[in-house]
């Protein structure tokens, strides 16, 4: 078994059919995906979709009803010294409030056998060198995240499992985290990072796992092309749509019927308008869909808020 592990060319996390049911309600349904060495995998899903439960099952914090996760073929709980293989940040508040920053790091270092020099280096790298004597309870959320990242990186792991690491980080910290992840992947490391900051994730992730109501599926990152290519409004949209359809081009009105969304490039749309002698009022190429658009279209959060008017009813309508 040990030899088989050593022969693996790169760090690979393999999640196989993880399932968890709470009192008859399925929180995670057969989640399966692989994270290859040298890649960053984004893990996204609405609140209550089963994201954190999946991460906890991967680490053995929650017992899976069925399924297993393997780090280079070994389940987490069977790793010899897990802190040396997998860096974990699940909860920025997972430290005793009364301990100092230095003592918190020292305890983790003692557990995994990291040297004092390594501990100091990690503390400095996350920018906490000046607050070593402060109690964890007095730190801001962003500072706690930095402490959590320092603990996760202490053992120089080949895997990183980070749950919402960017929460509470300042812009400088977010940029730093992005660089950390990129250089980690560049040296062959495997990262699984959950986040609600989709624009941020879009910048670093090689692949996405989207989990929605307990069902996980894979999605290539940065391929969020919308079906339509052009947005056009003309003096007579209804007529123009007929002209387009008769040429075999799909088009439909946008949500407030002010423009047509056309599945053809703007130059083609323009020529058809000229040939049909219909005047164009505006013609643009459709903006690429962002991860956020994609996310909102493809997931259905269990705890999704009501529409805007419900919000206004809570806080009072804005004055015109």
């Amino acid at each position, binding site marked *: 078994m040990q030899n088989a592990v050593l022969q693996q060319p790169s760090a690979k996390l393999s999640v196989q059919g993880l399932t968890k049911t709470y009192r008859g309600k399925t929180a995670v349904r057969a989640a399966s995906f692989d994270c290859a060495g040298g890649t960053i995998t984004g893990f996204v899903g609405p609140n209550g979709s089963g994201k*954190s439960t999946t991460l*906890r099952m991967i*680490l*053995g*914090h*929650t*017992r899976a009803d069925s399924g297993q996760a393997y780090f280079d073929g070994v389940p*987490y*709980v069977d*790793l010899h010294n*897990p*802190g040396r293989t997998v860096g*974990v940040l*699940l*909860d920025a*508040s*997972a*430290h*005793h*409030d*009364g*301990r100092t920053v230095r*003592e918190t790091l020292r*305890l*983790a270092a*003692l*557990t*995994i056998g990291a040297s004092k020099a390594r501990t100091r280096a990690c503390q400095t790298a996350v920018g906490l060198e000046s607050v070593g004597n402060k*109690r964890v309870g007095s730190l801001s959320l962003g500072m706690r995240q930095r402490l959590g990242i320092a*603990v996760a990186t202490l053992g120089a792991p080949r895997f990183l499992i980070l749950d919402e690491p960017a929460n509470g980080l300042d812009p400088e910290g977010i940029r730093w985290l992005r660089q950390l992840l990129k250089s980690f992947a560049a040296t062959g490391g495997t990262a699984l990072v959950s986040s609600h900051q989709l624009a941020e994730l879009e910048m670093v992730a090689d692949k996405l796992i989207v989990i929605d109501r307990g069902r996980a599926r894979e999605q290539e990152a940065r391929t969020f092309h919308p079906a339509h290519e052009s947005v056009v409004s003309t003096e007579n949209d209804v007529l123009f749509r007929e002209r387009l359809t008769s040429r075999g081009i799909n088009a439909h009105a946008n949500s407030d019927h002010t423009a047509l969304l056309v599945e053809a490039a703007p130059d083609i749309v323009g020529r058809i308008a000229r040939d049909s002698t219909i005047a164009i009022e505006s013609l643009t190429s459709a903006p690429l869909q962002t991860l956020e658009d994609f996310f909102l279209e493809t997931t259905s959060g269990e705890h999704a808020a009501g529409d805007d008017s419900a919000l206004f009813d809570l806080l009072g309508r804005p004055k015109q």
Partner: protein
Amino acid sequence: MTWLPRLTYIELRKCVDTKSALVLLAVIFVLAAGFAVLASTGEPDLNSFVGSALIPLPFLLPVISALSATSDWSQRATVTTFSLVPRRSRILVARLTATVLLVLLLASAIVVTTMAIFVVMHPAAFQATDWAEFAKTLWSILVLAITAALTGVAMGYLLLIPALAISVTLLVPVAYEVFISLRFPDVGPWISSLAFSQWLLKPNLDWESSGLETVGIGPALSSLLLWTVLPLAAGWVRQLRKEVK
């Protein structure tokens, strides 16, 4: 088993590396020594002097052990602890060992300090100490410390909430004395939370208790099982299965 000394050291360190833990230890230390000084009478004698320091310990030591058994859970530090050591039993063994060590260290510190105070206050009486009697006093302190550590940890492991674990550990013996032993004199001795430590103080081979002073082996074992082994085992299983978040 190389993990045991390392993890025990870490758990011991976690008992004393916060300000609140140090304050609590200091308070207990001062209270115990203070009791000795206040209780000292006109005719000084090392045994009764050190013995007086014992009086507050049955109430104070379980607080320490229940706290050290629960603080990781109450502070959500378990997420970090069990991430680094996912074989939870190792942590549970180390924490139990560390707690017993901590309580023993504290008790030793109290004994040494009260002895030193006695030597300074009554150098003449120190010479006249009955050392065989003193050994008995030390033994009773040892018994008290270990049983307090074990019950505190057992309740802590089972309940996982510091305030709850501390109050149950402290209230059960009192409730026993006030209600059970008076209402049900036949069953009482068998479910007393103190029977085991009472037997250790006066070991004998009788199965049943005789009178109020001497506790038999039967009630002693029943007490050990009921108040230490069972909650410890149930708490152990609970912590192995519990979702860490």
